[in-house]
């Protein structure tokens, strides 16, 4: 088990390194240097920055300095703001983004599982069809479309919720729903397929043959086994929620990292783009690593193959 975790951790680090390298190459393939933005910066500051970030050195040296910087969790200054660094943005934005993402994931997992289980138990009857219509809508309607529709109806027309920004709990409702819909739909569909497959397994018949009540069979034997494939896609879905969040944050004007990323793009604020990309990737790679480890922990079959390696 420990060996497996270490193995996975090593791959997570390699992936992170690859991401940083690719990001670095992409950002440095832009002609000129990232700080050369006309006239927004006094000459002395510019020179200090050049020296501080070793921009006067060859690219390869810069690359190693950048790696070292990232390892020390220093993402450098922002071009737009003279006082705030990228780290300041992340410190301010992360709690907001985390709140939004976590809330969306909780909604997606909770309702996705319920819809999937209900659909599988009432196969080819109306609860199944209703759940699957919700799932198809969730997959077909892009989050930004859903978000704009939610704003149009629930906020502008009927004023149930505030239109935008991030102040009270009611401000969090619409963006969380808009962000949750897609993963919710995926979880519901996968859970349904997985449940249908598990319910046809011989061990479900064994459980029934023991005289267990239908509910006990479903809860103790079916759901636990059906959850396994759902857990494996949680990592990818979390990645979708995180990348989806910068569109949602942008629409609702939520001051998270996503909005910082999008503003960075619009202002061509390269250190911000670079910093947020690396930060995002690190979070995602870490989450996928956690999901993998959790999976081996809950599925006894994998624990042994991992340990015997």
């Amino acid at each position, binding site marked *: 088990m420990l060996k497996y975790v270490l193995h996975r951790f090593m791959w997570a680090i390699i992936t992170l390194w*690859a991401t940083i390298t690719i990001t670095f190459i992409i950002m440095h*393939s832009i002609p000129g240097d990232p700080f050369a933005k006309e006239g927004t910066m006094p000459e002395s500051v510019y020179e200090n920055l050049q020296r501080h970030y070793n921009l006067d050195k060859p690219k390869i040296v810069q690359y190693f300095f950048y790696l070292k910087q990232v390892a020390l969790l220093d993402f450098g200054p922002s071009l737009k703001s003279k006082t705030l660094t990228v780290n300041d943005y992340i410190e301010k934005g992360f709690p907001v983004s985390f709140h939004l993402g976590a809330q969306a994931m909780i909604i997606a997992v909770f309702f996705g599982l319920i819809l999937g289980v209900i659909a599988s138990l009432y196969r080819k009857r109306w609860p199944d069809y209703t759940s699957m219509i919700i799932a*198809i809508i969730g997959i077909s309607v892009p989050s*930004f479309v859903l978000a704009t529709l939610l704003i149009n109806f629930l906020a502008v027309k009927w004023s149930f919720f505030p239109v935008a920004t991030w102040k009270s709990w009611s401000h969090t409702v619409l963006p969380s729903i808009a962000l949750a819909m897609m993963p919710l739909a995926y979880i519901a569909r996968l859970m349904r397929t997985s449940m249908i497959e598990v319910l046809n397994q011989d061990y479900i018949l064994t459980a029934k043959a023991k005289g267990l009540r239908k509910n006990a069979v479903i809860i103790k034997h079916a759901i636990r086994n059906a959850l396994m494939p759902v857990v494996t896609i949680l990592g990818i879905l979390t990645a979708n929620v995180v*990348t989806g969040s910068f569109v949602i944050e942008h629409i609702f004007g939520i001051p998270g990292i996503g909005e910082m990323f999008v503003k960075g*793009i619009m202002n061509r604020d390269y250190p911000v783009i670079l910093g947020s990309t690396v930060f995002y*990737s690190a979070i995602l790679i870490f989450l996928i690593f956690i999901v993998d480890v959790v999976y081996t922990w809950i599925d006894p079959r994998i624990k042994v193959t991992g340990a015997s390696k």
Partner: protein
Amino acid sequence: MAGKIEVTEEMFIPAENNFQEADRISRPTISYWSDVWRRLRANKLAMTGLVLIILLCLMAIFGPYMNGFTYYEQDFTKKNLAPNAEHWFGTDASGRDLFTRAWYGARISLFIGLMAALIDFMLGVIYGGISAIRGGRTDNIMMRIAEVIYSIPYLLMVILIMVVLKPGIFPIIIAMTITGWIPMARLVRGQVLQLKENEYVQAAKVAGAKLSWTLRKHLIPNSMGPILVNVTLTIPTAIFAEATLSFLGLGIQPPQASWGSLTNDALGSILIGNFYQLAIPALLISLTMFAFNVLGDGLQDALDPKLRE
């Protein structure tokens, strides 16, 4: 007992028995693809998707010429008009005809979706095929590389590349296919490996089957299925990514239009009550996603030999 029927002596004369009849297979054999097509046709949802796709493609070809306006022509005397006899979908904030723009956008969105799927398919077949056929160390290294690239969040990379490239149709396709081919490569590799090892291919070889026959009878039906499904499902992913990029202002630039940019343009207009500007591109993009997704799902079900009854 036998008393219920009249029995006569001659009934006990031995009957002429036809043993061939006893061994006759009662249902006719159907060729693989016509069987797939038969099952796909029985799937109402998938057929709805197919009809929608055909309609959308036709409208993408002919729609922009249907009412005599161009997608770029501005008429500031006719800003923000509601749908009417002249402008069927109304006009936007610059007085451009939304009907023409919507179908012009369809052209761009569908073109990008198809091209991205096609390029992903080709890259995937080449990379996955080489990896599987070479096998051993080469395969191991190639797949590790693919795995690392795959762990980098897709949309994040696409956005990052778009920051560097100039906005436009081809840069979008490049950005999307730089990392988009990996799932296809993994799929193709898996299929080829499975084929190399598969008992029935070995059996066909032993039985002296010609390569072309083996290809047609075994390789094509069994490998093309999952690949075809993957291509079908890549198209909506690419359309979604394009829409997200355009929505963030990184994709299609005015005066050109795509569904993503139209949605973004409409975002401001919902506050002044011009809901239709949002509704039309939102509906079109959702319909397209829906159509490709249900067709892909239907294909998957129709191709799965396990479900063959």
